[in-house]
């Protein structure tokens, strides 16, 4: 992996950098520890905060409720009262197995760029998954075939044609807390190198007059797929996590059947805060 023939290798720069961070040859590697943690903690693709010092460090220094995520690099920012609605996230050490036997598709969207394990052009969907305990999960997965869940938490089945991605489980009402016209989630994917991709999904309350949604920004508007009161779409990639692609406003706008904007959400604020963010009439 080394290449000392490269001419652009400056010994003075090397010397400067050498003093900054030492090569800790005496540091003890702990492969067994990594293996134990990988096998004992929640499966990939689920949302959880990693235990140990990294988790504590992040928790203490950021004071953020955003969740670090494992292998499938899907982070879900749960926003706008999902927690208040009684939603439970897989933040504990033992996430429940997801029952997919009654899965029904809520809304479908064709990806415009790669996201997580999916490719641009893949058609994905929000899936409604009633659970045996009466709760409901809403998760992203390919629109077809019907998603399947791993046999047990902590396992990955390479033959699974449609593993479920990010999402949340919660109250059977499903479409957000009363009094909240809209709830939304932003999933962050980092599997495109240095670029972060955002998937936006959510629902409008059953009494809402919203008939269409789009994201307005200085760059134009991005329509969201909207069906059964649920919406799904994608933001352009960003080079920084928790940062929208361009400066300026990014606003999720809901329109009624007459084309009047009746609901707005500031996505920039949504990205930087896990607290319920304000909604204002147009």
């Amino acid at each position: 992996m080394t290449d000392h023939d490269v001419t652009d290798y400056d010994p003075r720069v090397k010397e400067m950098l050498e003093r900054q961070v030492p090569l800790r040859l005496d540091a003890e590697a702990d492969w067994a520890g990594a293996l134990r943690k990988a096998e004992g903690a929640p499966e990939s693709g689920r949302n959880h905060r990693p235990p140990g010092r990294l988790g504590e460090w992040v928790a203490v220094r950021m004071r953020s409720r955003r969740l670090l995520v494992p292998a499938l690099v899907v982070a879900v920012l749960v926003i706008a009262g999902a927690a208040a609605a009684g939603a439970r996230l897989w933040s504990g050490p033992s996430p429940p197995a997801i029952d997919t036997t009654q899965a029904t598709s809520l809304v479908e969207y064709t990806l415009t760029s790669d996201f997580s394990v999916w490719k641009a052009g893949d058609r994905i969907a929000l899936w409604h998954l009633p659970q045996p305990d009466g709760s409901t999960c809403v998760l992203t997965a390919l629109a077809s075939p019907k998603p399947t869940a791993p046999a047990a938490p902590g396992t990955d089945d390479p033959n699974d044609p449609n593993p479920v991605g990010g999402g949340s489980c919660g109250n059977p009402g499903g479409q957000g807390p009363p009094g909240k016209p809209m709830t939304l989630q932003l999933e962050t994917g980092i599997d495109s190198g240095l670029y972060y991709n955002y998937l936006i999904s959510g629902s409008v309350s059953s009494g809402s007059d919203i008939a269409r949604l789009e994201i307005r920004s200085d760059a134009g508007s991005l329509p969201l797929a909207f069906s059964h009161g649920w919406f799904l779409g994608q933001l352009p990639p960003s080079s920084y996590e928790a940062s929208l692609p361009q400066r300026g406003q990014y606003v999720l706008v809901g329109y009624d059947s007459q084309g009047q904007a009746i609901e707005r959400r500031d996505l920039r604020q949504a990205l930087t805060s896990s607290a319920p963010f304000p909604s204002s009439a147009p």
Partner: protein
Amino acid sequence: MTKEPVALAALSDIYESRYARFLRVAEAIVGDAEVARDVVQEAFVRLIRSRLQFRGEGSVDGWVWRTVVNTARNARRDASKHRAEDPSVEPTATNGHVVDAGVRALLATLPERQRLVLFLRYYADLDYRAIAEALEIRPGTVGATLNQAHSAMKRVLKEVPQ
């Protein structure tokens, strides 16, 4: 979607043989040795769990480095969002010598891509192709970025009376 699962033994070999370099790059990115250890562990936990999803696009080494770098970047970014401005970010020189704090400050002012290319080149000893894979940029971009970073570093050296 082509998938070529990565054997645990292969990951283990990479981990054991390059642990010190992973640690060094992670420490350079997060600025804390203890956190760097956790970053490397967390990165490998992710790699172990996601080995079945490895798409076989590019080398395993590139995938591993990319995961370590991204895990460290996330940790640093998460922390920096709520951290007060570091007073050491202003370059300083003392008695004609660039002090370490000055180099640190200079590094802090470089664009992230330049910093990462420097770290992977000098701390991980990766060649252009490997850096390009780790950062998912073109090898030509690595060269250009490294040149820019070198220029910035050399400017500081020239400004210091010999």
